[in-house]
């Protein structure tokens, strides 16, 4: 087993440990456990980051060619993004019970994917691609936090049999605002990701839109988040309705970016799922 995989496993273990602590901490109202969960996961960023850097240096390109690299770097960015955001908004520490398990799942998904080294093909040698990927990761991280907030909202609004747990959670109003804000931020990043992807495609192949399945499903996801924002702002769909839609469109975004490449022939799956 090479050093990169050892570090990857170490990071995953620390996230998983953090996830367990977060769930126990929220259920049993143990503030200390929540802090430990965040600390454990934050420490996990170091070996996980190390694994990414080792690979980056070895294959001479960023972590964005195959599914292993994509899931690994997405998990790292989401974890880092969440760590920074919860420092600013302390009540979001409770969302760790949802966010950390999702990050562990992403790491597991990465482990199950092929991790073989793929050298950078000429079509992917572009600054546009790097920007495209940065915004893809930022939008995934934003949607993950809005999903976490929505899941907690739904749990809290339904959890009459376990009041001690729901007491630990932020107020419904705060969760509702976070669902909305991170959907809006994610929508902005998603918009820019699609725009940059289109410019890159035009620069590389002379077509800015080819109705490639992942392109099309990104547009479907964009329309879905756009619809959410319109319903929220114009029809005042807040609270439970907003949370339910968020969970549904988060599922749609996962389908678009991580599952469609497996089922449909797309330029995005050329290296991603091999």
């Amino acid at each position: 087993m090479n050093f990169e995989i050892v570090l990857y496993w170490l990071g995953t273990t620390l996230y998983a440990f953090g996830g367990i602590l977060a769930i126990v901490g929220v259920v049993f109202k143990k503030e200390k456990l929540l802090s430990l969960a965040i600390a454990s996961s934050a420490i996990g960023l170091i070996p996980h980051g190390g694994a990414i850097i080792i690979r980056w240096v070895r294959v001479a390109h960023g972590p964005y060619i195959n599914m292993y690299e994509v899931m690994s770097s997405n998990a790292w960015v989401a974890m880092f993004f969440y760590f920074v955001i919860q420092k600013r908004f302390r009540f979001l520490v409770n969302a760790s019970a949802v966010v950390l398990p999702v990050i562990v799942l992403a790491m597991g998904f990465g482990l199950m994917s092929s991790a073989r080294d793929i050298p950078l093909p000429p079509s992917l040698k572009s600054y546009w691609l790097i920007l495209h990927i940065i915004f893809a990761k930022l939008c995934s991280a934003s949607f993950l936090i809005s999903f976490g907030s929505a899941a907690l909202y739904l749990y809290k609004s339904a959890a009459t049999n376990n009041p001690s747990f729901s007491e630990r959670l932020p107020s419904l109003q705060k969760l509702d605002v976070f669902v909305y804000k991170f959907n809006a931020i994610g929508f902005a990043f998603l918009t820019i990701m699609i725009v940059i992807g289109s410019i890159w495609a035009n620069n590389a192949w002379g077509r800015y839109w080819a109705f490639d399945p992942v392109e099309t499903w990104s547009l479907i996801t964009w329309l879905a988040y756009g619809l959410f924002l319109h319903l929220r702002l114009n029809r005042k769909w807040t609270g439970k309705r907003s949370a339910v839609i968020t969970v549904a469109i988060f599922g749609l975004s996962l389908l678009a970016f991580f599952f469609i490449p497996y089922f449909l022939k797309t330029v995005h799956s050329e290296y991603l799922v091999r």
Partner: protein
Amino acid sequence: MLLIAGFLVLATLIPQKPELTKAEYFTLKQKYPLFTKFISFTGLDHIYTSWWFLAVVSVFTLNLVLNLTGRIKITLRHMSSNKSPPSPDDIERSKYRHVLDVTVLDDALKERLTRTVSGLGFNVKQFREGILGTKKMWGLWGIPLFHGSLLLILTGIMISGLTRFSGTFEIAEGQTFSGQAEELIQTHYGLLALKPKPDFQLMLRKFNVEHWAPEHPKLIQSTVDVYEEGNLILSEKVEINKPLKYKGFAFYQSRYFGHAAYMTLLDKVTGQSNSGYVNFPSKKHDTGVFKQSFVLPLLGYRAQIKYDPLYPELMVIKILNGTEVKWEGIVKKGGGVDLGRYYLRFNDIVKWTAFFVSWDKGIPVLYSGFVVLSLSVLGLVFVVPRRLWLLYNKDKILVGVEVLSRSMETFEEEFEKIVKSLKESIK
């Protein structure tokens, strides 16, 4: 939006005619005759060009236009109200309100309040009735610009769809492309395509491929020269992600490449010759034997050629007249085959590659839309325009703050900070 999203989902699940080869479509028809008939009848096999999809997109566009005009009116109304003095109505409709008690409301206090509001980052206007502070008001243009940018993008797509021309051509080292229709394959012309003709020639001077490993190319690069009326205008290296743009045409490096045999057929009687390139099919590996066959002009004979990169100076040539073998053997570079009146010369083995060429006047409009879209969406989320009123009312100052972005629903923390600063300034 829902309808468009639904149709997009269908288009990825149902095989679309433009994406299928004739053979694939035929197989589908054989396998599922009823299904193929149904999707063909309803237009589900070419959703993006079906009248009903275009109708939905048109309704969406019309909606955008109406929305945009409404949004511009609202924004202009907001902007013009920035010139009015504070009124009780302004305070009444503010989401965040507070009352400050003062003992003496003199000019010195008003001046201090003005400085405080200004210190909080607001642009301040003083009136006899009170103070009006505005902050990041340009953010109000976020929503109109966002919707406007979508219209710009749709306009760009429409121009592109109607006037775009594109095609692919193969070219060998030393060969020239001059834009003639017969040089192009897989051409596409928009409904109103102007069929532009380049008034220049493009010559492939050198083609270079480098590999990380046999199946993984590292670099695919063409060095091309552009000539106008026989004069060299420019030389450029074209790669994937580095197209050549010249006089409205864009040339994109394809990932396909291979070997080409440069041959000449000479008429010994008239002295006339006919030279050309015969491209061997593209292969992932640059190893093994490459084969190709072609018809010799004038003679009508069929020639079969074989080439192995391990022996770069040699080529196996077989000449057939129907099934009768007229000649077969190995020919060295510079040598040839004697066919009586005609002589077939094997000049050289060079490399060929392919280029995708396009002429698209919709791109500048589309990209302008992209820029406005990206800036406006960031503005919508991160720029929060706000307005603050301080209304003098005898021994009280009524404070009202209005957040003019619907994307920002919580403002408590900043409002508390504003009130705290104001309280300090009236002490």
